[in-house]
């Protein structure tokens, strides 16, 4: 699904104009991104929970530099789908299984 298709479909469903829809979509993405950037999580009903996790500092051996290196901590996004969504999509596309 392309961005255009997504907006077409959204504007059709919500009855908003395409410009408005695009703005709303972009605001939604920004709000989610800002929340996650603050290190906070949020649950969206019927979709799931977005949260962040910080990977601690770790030591690796870098063969290129032939040395041990300290890898800095990294904060990553985690997503866990809602149980409803998980159930609904459990066997999608695998009807024969």
């Amino acid at each position, binding site marked *: *699904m392309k961005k255009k298709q*997504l907006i077409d*479909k*959204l504007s059709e*469903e919500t009855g*908003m104009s395409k410009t*408005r*829809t695009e*703005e*709303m979509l*972009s*605001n*939604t*993405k920004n*709000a*989610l*991104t*800002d*929340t*996650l*950037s603050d290190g*906070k*999580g*949020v*649950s*969206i*009903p*019927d*979709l799931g*929970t977005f*949260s*962040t*996790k*910080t*990977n601690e500092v*770790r*030591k*690796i*051996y*870098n*063969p290129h530099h*032939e*040395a*041990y*290196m*300290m*890898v*800095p*901590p*990294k904060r*990553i*996004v985690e*997503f866990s789908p809602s149980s409803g*969504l998980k159930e*609904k*999509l*459990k*066997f*999608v596309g695998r009807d024969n*299984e």
Partner: protein
Amino acid sequence: MWAEIMSEKITFKELVEKIAEQSQQSYSSTNNFIQELVEIIESGLSESGSVKISGFGKFELRWMKERPGINPQTGEEITIPGQNKVVFKPYKALRQKVNKPYSKMSAQILEGELQAQKKPSEEDESLEDILIERESPIQSHTDSVKDDEKPLALDNQANLTKEVDKSSSMKWSYAAAAIIVLLAFMIMIFLMQQPSEQPSEPALSEQTEQHEELDSPVTDTEEDPAAAADQTEDAPADAPPPPADEEAVPDEDSPQELELISHNVSPGESLWTIAESQLGNPYLWPLIYYLNQDLLDNPNQLFADGNLEIPTISDPENLTDFEQEQVALGYFSLYQWAQTNAPDEARYFLWAVGAFSLDLLEERASEVDAEDLQFATQR
């Protein structure tokens, strides 16, 4: 910092209010908008298995095969049926923004630990020794070059100089190859014997002895350049797989796709023997496993008369970067398989992932067990 440890959350209501305010929309129409968006994501996943939201991320369905498990309440063995898993992959912009607090930090080289932490059995170090030793016959050779009794050494000098020039780029490929072979050997022992003890320690110490033997004659030959040249010629050949010739460097313009052919499994074959006969290198067997994962649940079990997709590898001794990554992916799926089915062996597969593609290992670092990762990054 504490906020992350507590993994603080905002409520959905707060999120909707935020969006509503920014968009100058009512709460209910914003709420409605998000509901519709969620529905579109769900129907998109159900129709095509993936929904991309530009500038944000991608939702995807990933099929998890049927696997054995244990009912934690009764302790009885059950089969967990195959099912889809919904995954979300954030795009770069989101990843970068979320990681902003740490974005200015870069990896630091730990100087003091360089030598102290290296185990004597490390192949790359032994190879380094060999390569350093290579240079000394050339230098000592200039003293004895007038001595016409040693034309052999003279011929070799040109080759050696070339090889030493290339050594910096090739050194790691030798080391990687040696490590891979050692590891695959260990894995095969594991797979064949299903042992209760840990055979890795004897295997490692054997390897150490081998390298000590390998090192000592090289060191002894400084007085005799001819012999030294012979030794150094032999030395890289001992580190399997041997470098074929001067064109041993992997192709830069490597294809980004594997050509697949179908292979009918005959009774008595294993992934190992198929990789040996079809790919030319038995240690590439995880690649076949990776490409046929939907058919092969247990990598140790093959069903005769089934058809497997076999990739065509142009040169099994010199894999392209892409092929290496594919093999690494194969080892990674073996790692995931082993996590549930043979937890004691899992880390060796993860180690092999790093041996083929360190990038992949780093990329998947968040998906693996911390202890395994530590083991896998010790090299």
